[in-house]
């Protein structure tokens, strides 16, 4: 015991003991913090899932574009029989999340009768593996991701994120250390988005288009693998999937034309359309005026209402017989 306590003496100068002590403290601190629930200021890293109380008649899936672009009560009202509509769309997610969400929903015996999938197409050209593994997946799901053999280093990093509170929360912690209020950077974007959008005479400036929207349409192997799995899962359970291409602002439309975005997106959609149970309802780009958007990608309330009504018109003849009441999450 005296030997052990001697480490606290200023005369104790053992570099090896310092390394061991450091390792023990890190493991201890991370284990204790790992047992705590992630704090509210955790930022965007952790994705949680709100499963519906019962099987939805129509379920919206996708990323923030789908989450903010579809007004559930409007959709339910506009569809014949006022079906029970639910959304499992999540901000900053991709097809890989959609697959695991559907898998969990099916495991809980809450199979939706129809899925409306309305993702921003760029989600197919970006990987979110550390976020998926570290902030969303359960251990069996991580094993499934690892078995896919795609991007093993990202999977490993995701596992470290899952195990380490600090890694998982490094963005808000970094903000705090830099003297900003936690979530300030993330909220700066969302605060802007909360505003009602532009006045009719105002326009989004093409020079300010974020880089991600200037790229050609591409499909990365990881999202592709899990999108295939998502479609297969839906097909096995005879759940029809309706793909809706979300509307865009004119500036994005011009940028996409310049980089031949649609020339590559359309064959991809046509390929999906060949599959049983999948229907593409809006394959070509639909351009809305700037004042219907909050930012380059997300519709405002007025825009979302317009898009939802358009969606209901397209869906109504295609949907299977549905009934029920509206339930927003």
């Amino acid at each position, binding site marked *: 015991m005296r030997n052990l306590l001697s*480490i*606290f*003496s*200023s*005369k*104790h*100068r*053992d*570099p*090896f*003991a*310092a*390394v061991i*002590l*450091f390792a023990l*403290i*890190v493991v201890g601190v991370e284990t204790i913090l790992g047992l705590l629930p992630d704090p509210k200021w955790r930022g965007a890293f952790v994705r949680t899932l709100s499963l519906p109380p019962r099987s939805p008649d129509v379920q919206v899936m996708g990323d923030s574009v789908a989450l903010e672009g579809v007004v559930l009560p409007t959709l339910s009202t506009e569809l014949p029989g006022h079906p029970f509509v639910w959304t499992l769309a999540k901000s900053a997610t991709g097809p890989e999340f959609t697959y695991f969400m559907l898998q969990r929903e099916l495991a809980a015996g809450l199979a939706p009768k129809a899925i409306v999938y309305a993702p921003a197409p760029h989600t197919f050209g970006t990987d979110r593996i550390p976020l998926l593994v570290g902030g969303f997946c359960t251990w069996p799901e991580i094993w499934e991701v690892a078995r896919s053999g795609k991007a093993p*280093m990202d999977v*490993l*990093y995701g596992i470290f994120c899952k195990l*380490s509170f*600090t*890694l998982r929360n*490094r963005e808000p*912690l*970094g903000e705090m*250390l*830099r003297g900003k209020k936690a979530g300030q950077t993330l909220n700066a974007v969302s605060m802007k988005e909360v505003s009602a959008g532009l006045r009719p005479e105002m326009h989004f400036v093409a020079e300010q288009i974020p880089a991600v929207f200037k790229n050609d349409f591409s499909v990365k192997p990881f999202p592709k693998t899990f999108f295939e799995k998502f479609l297969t899962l839906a097909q096995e359970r005879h759940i029809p999937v309706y793909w809706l291409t979300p509307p865009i602002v004119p500036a994005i439309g011009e940028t996409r034309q310049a980089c031949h975005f649609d020339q590559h997106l359309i064959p991809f959609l046509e390929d999906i359309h060949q599959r049983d149970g999948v229907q593409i309802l809006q394959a070509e780009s639909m351009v809305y005026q700037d004042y219907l958007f909050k930012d380059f990608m997300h519709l405002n309330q007025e825009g979302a209402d317009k898009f939802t009504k358009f969606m209901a018109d397209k869906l109504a003849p295609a949907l299977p017989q549905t009934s029920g009441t509206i339930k927003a999450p």
Partner: protein
Amino acid sequence: MLFNTLQFWVFFAVVLGLYYVLPHRWQNRMLLAASYIFYAAWDYRFVSLILISTTVDFYVGKILDQTSDQRRRKAILFWSILFNLGFLGFFKYYGFFAHNLQHLLHVAGFQASIHTLNIVLPVGISFYTFQSMSYTLDIYRREMKPTSSFMDFALTVAFFPHMVAGPIQRAHSLIDQVAQPRKPTRDNFSEGFYLIIWGLFKKIVVADNMALIANPIFANDGHFTAGRVFGGALAFAFQIYGDFSGYTDIARGTALLMGFRLMVNFNLPYFATNPQDFWRRWHISLSTWLRDYLYISLGGNRRGEVRTYWNLLITMVFGGLWHGAAWTFVLWGVYHGLLLCAHRAMAGLIPETPFGVSRAGQLLWRWLRIGFMFGLTLYGWLIFRCHSAGQLWVMTRAVFSFSIGAGTIATTIKILCYCSLLLMVQLYQFRKNNLNALRESPTLIQTGFYLACFYLILIIGAFDAQSFIYFQF
């Protein structure tokens, strides 16, 4: 495969695991294979370049040792150097010289079209070429005997911790370590760990965050204020130091975990009091290489005062050009050459203790010299970092406008905040005049240091795995 990626650490964990279970000879074989895999991760085609260079220098070394005729030895050495520098020159400088020659001919009124090739620069070619050349040069000077094992020599050249960005190890020191069995010790482990975590901190926290400040400043060709130029140069000074010394620390640390001791490459360079002192502290392996093999070969300071200045200038221009094929690097070499010449010329004129012999007077004089030298170094980094002579001219003019400009103080504070741990540790090392001072401090202070480094890396480290600046050299 960068040291600041998970991919490298997985690779290293596998190598280390195998290393500890294998006997000595197999350790070397495995390390050689691992080194080639490490290099092939960038571009497998260029592994052949290393192999060719290694084979040629191995046999040249043998022949040089067996030859007693001095004229023949000189001729063999000449061809060996020509071969090595020819490779380096072709891959690194062909485009630069072809472009400039064409421009020169055009100015002279000739319409010449010199074929320029889009040559990919093999990573670390300057490092392993110099490393390999030191072997033949040392054998020529009869300072070492050639090794009989090709495998040992190949590992010396290709040893993955130092292959792509140094330190440019002297052949004899590494060959001896390769040849002898190495035993893992507690001390090697703790020192290796210290160097790795400190190196990662310098790279991920200091250098990569400084890059976020410096890059936008140097990307701008338009309006500069003196304050903005100062901010850019200061950020770049810490970026390049954090980047390169961080790499060296990680290289030395990983080597130590396997029982190899690589040379110290940086010794608190921003605490230098004069240009000569700076080059004894900055990129020591290159400056000593240039001193031993170029400056001394040119005659050093043995052929009169004028020739000494000339030799200094030539050595530094060559050192500048070693960094890359651009006029800004040549200019940077000339600048440091002139600083060395000026320091040499004024050495006798500067009083040793202008503020008296008291401790306070000496301390004040020392810090004044450190501050002045740091200012000169900052201007050197401005030359180094500018993408053209035109930008350098604009930025230099801005310095003399003496306008502070909005945001200068905030940028400086930001830089100092990111570098605060680095500065504190280095002040402590400087005060103790010991690079190992921290490892000799109480255990709890060392533990606190590791925790601070580790959590700062995790929380404010730039995780987008930016490449190391010196890889391009």
